[in-house]
């Protein structure tokens, strides 16, 4: 299936989900002719219309002729890469308070550097540590933001 058809399906699913949640909203009209449900209903309907139009305008097969033959494997490689980075970032968020900002950020950067800036260990370790410490100092000391200390007692 081509991208636009995927998009239309995603958009329709989102519209239905949002619309379903809208149904459970209470009907409150305190001197207000519209109430809190009006706009959400209008948005749901508009999005459904857009999704349907997009579905029928998109073609079921991939017809992008400008893309070369090797694009499919490249597409998979890129999608996999982006998914991996996002998963890594999600993991970073999950353990953020447990590990603490300094250690967590250092580890995240080290993993990304090791993959993208392969083989340059010294530069990578130095950049990751300096970056973590400097941002910590700026936010925690200069701007007074409480960052989770985690495993490193500060």
């Amino acid at each position, binding site marked *: 299936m081509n991208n636009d058809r995927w998009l239309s399906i995603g958009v329709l699913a989102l519209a239905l989900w949002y619309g379903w949640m809208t149904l459970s909203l209470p009907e409150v009209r305190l001197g207000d*002719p519209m109430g809190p449900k*009006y706009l959400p209903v209008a948005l749901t309907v508009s*999005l459904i219309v857009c999704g349907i139009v997009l579905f029928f305008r998109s073609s079921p097969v991939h017809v992008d002729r400008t893309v070369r033959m090797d694009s499919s494997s490249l597409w998979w490689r890129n999608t996999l*890469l*982006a998914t991996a980075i996002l998963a890594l970032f999600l993991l970073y968020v999950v353990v953020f308070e447990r590990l603490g900002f300094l250690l967590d950020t250092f580890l995240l*950067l080290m993993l990304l550097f090791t993959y993208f800036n392969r083989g340059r260990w010294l530069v990578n370790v130095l950049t990751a540590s300096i970056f973590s410490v400097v941002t910590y100092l700026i936010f925690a000391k200069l701007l007074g*933001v409480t960052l989770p200390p985690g495993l490193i007692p500060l």
Partner: protein
Amino acid sequence: MDTVQMILHGFSVALTLTNLMYVFAGVLLGTMIGVLPGIGPATGVALLIPLTFNADPTSALIMMAGLYYGAMYGGSTTSILINTPGESSSVMTAIDGYQMARNGRPGAALAISAIGSFIAGTFGVLALTIMAVPLAEFAIQFGPAEYFGLMVFALAAVTSLSGRSLLKGLISTIVGLMVATVGIDLQSGVVRYNFGVSALQDGVEFLVVVVGLFALGEVLVSLEDLHAGRSQPIKLVGRVWLTLEEWRRSIGPILRGSVIGFFTGVLPGAGGTVASIISYTMEKRISKRPDEFGKGAIEGVAGPESANNASTAGAMVPLLTLGIPGSATTAVLVGALIMYGIQPGPMLFQKNPELVWGLVDSMYIGNAMLLILNVPLVGLFVQMLRIPVALLLPMIIGISSVGVYALNNNVVDLYVLVLFGVVGYIMRKLEVPPAPFVLAVVLGKILEQSMRQALVISGGDPSIFVTTPIGAAFLALAIIFALLPLVSKTLQSARAGRDAEMA
């Protein structure tokens, strides 16, 4: 105080040592972000918000605006030396700028970009200074119905001008409006779509949306492209200056670019990229030597570079006088204003004259600073192109997360950040323009409020939107703008059909 006094008073705000430092920091960061491909001004301004929490709102805004127009200066450097636009608005500069650099005139191309930007930027700020007060006074009489019309117009313009597909722009707008409905409804007190998460009761933090959509989205796409490698920058030889002949050829394009850029910037949805395309097309059309375009014509650098700079000053006009942003970056600026507890809109000139005029006047100073940074010191920024992108991009992820966490010290915001990072990435992959989404998130709450307030006034009669002349005019403009892409598409296919018949 009358207006002239206000304007002069603005200089006393802008010229304090603290604010001079903020302008300088802003334009310096702007130039750097401009030079680096992959990070745009919207991301830059968003990442700056957490850093300026403790600052005075005026200083913070001065710095953010400085970053915005500073990025226009920096973007050309990358276009000229490595044929990759540092910002999307420098895309036209790459055509002739890179050729000039290859023909041994990189210094002249860089110089004319900076000088053109300076002239156009200053012209733009001057026009902003003159136009702002009358426009704000006109807008002060707007009621909720007029505001509703205006916001619909802004959304329609951004939707129709920001991408190739009107339908996708519309989807982006609607989903953005949906995100804006999360949280307590201000009129009824009903909590909508918070999924039982108390942190979402006040709505989705706008900063989190922007950082996820722009910073994370851009970083992910740039990381994918990393394996493609980057071409070596052309060596900067000779002085960064112009010959007399180059001066003579550039002055016309600069002046025309200034005017085109300013008015394109005022219009919601258009902005720097459109301004530079219009300027380039026009210069090529009126040139006596159109065949030189694409081979290193200095007019093709001078015009677009001036236009994109004047557009930033133009974009400040609706932002300051109406409180309506017309682009992603100005939407971030409006979001920042709201976060500082300042209500954007025409009342700004009466309630916060120091902020408005301090900001406007700082733009004269910032442009002068940028001229110095980008002519004699441009060599320093060229060095930045040596920083490995593989190190830079992961650090942006780090800055994004600490900035978002700093907002409320709440890890929930980080989960929301991941979510919008995913959304931003998918949007880029499926070619859904992110600008309408951000605009809708920023405007959504006010849009709904003004719509409902208008209906309360009219007792539920929807004709109020079309019976107030100004409101009706805005809605008509919105419809015209929405139909614009369809009309131009029909014209194009008609022309193509005619050409095919002729052949």
